[in-house]
């Protein structure tokens, strides 16, 4: 593929803009609140089911990071693809995948998105353009670049949103992908979810360059640091990046500065950070509380907000019920889907 000739473009490495991000309409605020709440309540329920032994293996919760996927999804169009790593429940719910199907996959049941054969880290939805769900740290970055390659090949105007963490950002194939994405001007937004810890290793102990928006600098990929706890900032940055990609200018990096409240996985001893640190972020920056407070300030009634809470709880409770009562896969499923 011939790389388009490019002018010596400057590579913006914007910090988060000083001012507040563009305001949301009331409808946008309500949608953001509802979608983030759904993820949080879902994840809390998943944690509970894990504790009860209903969910096995690995289970990586997204609590605290909800504004990232919800804000990005608000910036996308139908047809844009999403791909991520193993902390994927929030991404799936944000793309509109059914909570029952996700929860039933967590419990390994036949109604799960992968018929119970993938589990927490391996789910997909062609219909919702969700390409997984990948358990090998960093592998989704090359795959997501491949989704963008396909968009470019077909000329369909779609963008691949490729999520990975601050830990995955140190994998070699990430930079192989950056190189090809910029060389071929592929429409891919690399969303680096910097939640400050790669499992138990803080960014400062693992990363020589801790400003992840600069990780594409040597490939001339523009990057931006974003307040990933503010859903409005995420959406605005996502729109800017998507417009860049759709204009044929190639990839864009968004470093989402976020935080996970729970451990890396359910078996995390949490010895690498203090309770106080977690509590401070929860208290000062919680993405859901930010929206709730703005809505209350805008005179939305407590009752209206409670109605959203109730709707979300019903969905989550129903999914937990479904996931515990749906049968396990038929034993014949052991041998299916190896080839087609």
């Amino acid at each position, binding site marked *: 593929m011939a790389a388009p000739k490019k002018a010596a473009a400057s590579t913006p490495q914007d910090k988060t803009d000083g001012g507040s991000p563009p305001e949301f309409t009331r409808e946008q605020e309500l949608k953001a609140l509802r979608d983030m709440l759904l993820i949080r309540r879902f994840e809390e329920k998943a944690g509970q089911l894990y504790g009860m032994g209903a969910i096995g293996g690995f289970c990586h919760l997204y609590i605290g990071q909800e504004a990232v996927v919800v804000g990005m999804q608000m910036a996308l169009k139908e047809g844009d693809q999403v791909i991520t790593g193993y902390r994927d429940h929030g991404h799936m719910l944000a793309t509109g995948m059914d909570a029952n199907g996700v929860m039933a996959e967590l419990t390994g049941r036949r109604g799960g998105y992968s018929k119970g054969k993938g589990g927490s880290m391996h789910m997909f939805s062609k219909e919702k353009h969700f390409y997984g769900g990948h358990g090998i740290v960093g592998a989704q970055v090359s*795959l997501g670049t491949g989704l963008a390659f396909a968009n470019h090949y077909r000329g369909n105007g779609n963008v691949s949103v490729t999520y990975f963490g601050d830990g995955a950002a140190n994998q070699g194939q990430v930079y192989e*992908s950056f190189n090809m994405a910029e060389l071929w001007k592929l429409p891919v937004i690399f969303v680096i979810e910097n939640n400050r810890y790669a499992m138990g290793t803080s960014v400062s102990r693992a990363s020589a360059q801790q400003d992840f928006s600069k990780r594409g600098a040597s490939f001339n990929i523009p990057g931006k640091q974003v307040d990933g706890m503010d859903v409005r900032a995420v959406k605005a940055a996502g729109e800017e990046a998507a417009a860049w990609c759709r204009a044929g200018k190639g990839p864009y990096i968004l470093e989402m500065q976020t935080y996970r409240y729970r451990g890396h996985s359910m078996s995390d001893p949490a010895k690498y950070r203090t309770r106080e640190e977690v509590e401070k972020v929860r208290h000062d920056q919680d993405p859901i509380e930010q929206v709730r407070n703005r809505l209350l300030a805008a005179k939305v009634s407590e009752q209206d907000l409670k109605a959203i809470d109730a709707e979300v709880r019903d969905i989550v409770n129903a999914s937990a019920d479904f996931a515990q009562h749906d049968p396990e896969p038929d034993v014949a499923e052991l041998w299916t889907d190896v080839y087609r």
Partner: protein
Amino acid sequence: MPIQVLMPALSPTMEKGNLAKWLKKEGETIKSGDVIAEIETDKATMEVEATDEGTLGKILIPEGTADVAVNTPIATILADGESAADLAKAPAPAAKAAESAPPAAAKAEAPAPKAAPAPQAVAEPDPEVPAGTEMVTQTIREALRDAMAEEMRRDADVFVMGEEVAEYQGAYKVTQGLLQEFGAKRVIDTPITEHGFAGVGVGAAMTGLKPIVEFMTFNFAMQAIDQIINSAAKTLYMSGGQMGCSIVFRGPNGAAARVAAQHSQDYSAWYSHIPGLKVVAPYSAADAKGLLKAAIRDPNPVIFLENEVLYGHTGEVPKLDDFIIPIGKARIVRSGSHVTIVSWSNGMTYALKAADELAKDGIEAEVIDLRTLRPMDTETIINSVKKTGRAVTVEEGWAQSGVGAEIAARIMENAFDYLDAPVVRVSGKDVPMPYAANLEKLALPSAAEVVEAAKAVCYR
């Protein structure tokens, strides 16, 4: 005394080549390092640099001459003060060979294959080819190229990507001409970044495109094996059948010649271990074409193991509009009743030579070309062993956990009562591939070892 310039070898295995062009005329001054001529094989074109200074005295081999043997004097160079009258004094034996242009870098070049045709002493007609079909003689390289070109004409979702596949025309010239026909959008030169472009290919395939990913050699695919196995092979299962990928990973596999341990490994056993992958390893030109077309159409990830030594071998390829060899079917290439020899890819070279030798001693070997390693055509092997009662496997890879070990186990499981002798494996020796010519030869299997093994199982 005039200096002779000899026909250089592009590689240790090159025996002859064409003198394509003279870039200097008789009487012209020559400095060390000047490019004086171009030579070519079916694989590559190379410049001949002078290593001596003087005047080009006489061109002994005119341009356009084909099949000039390596070390044939092609010109004489007169040193300062010498004249044409001195030409007669040129020494008869090799004085100084001109050297081919810069020695092959590990990534860029590897030895050209032997020009000799493969001993395709095919006794059994291929049941996939209708009787009376017109045949064309092609190299395996050309057969592979035609397979890709035909499938690319047929389906706009098929594209080829890899290192040097486009403008260079393929490191081994397998993709020759594809860029010219299909353009840069569908014939894509990648950076040297196997892990990354394998992942890009798999990601594109997940959306329904059908990539052909060329590895310059499968030795380099070890960089990419995570994407091949964890992403390509497992996704269909992990997604409950929702999302898989139709993708071909192809390139030369196994030993070439004199490229030592890091460029000579046979990955047959590695990939054939993996559920979710299909693994194909053809030996003949017809199979190379028919199976590659089948691989490109297959909705699953297919590992297509070629062999560099075989690229230049010629064979008869059916002239059919759409010649497909189904994946998963072995072929009895030579029928016999005394011993079954099972091999694939370049292992067939040893197997067929051995069968010829054995026939002289009255042992009729049945030779099976497996063609596909996964799914393995166990039935064809078992039916043969039930007839012969004896089996030998031949592979260039290592014996431990190898394909021969798998075949032996299947024979034991399915035809134990028919065996008159334990199965014997002929394989590559249990060492990294050495560089020295004599050691390399010892490390690889040989027809003599196959003969010995066959005689052993026949108690002869």
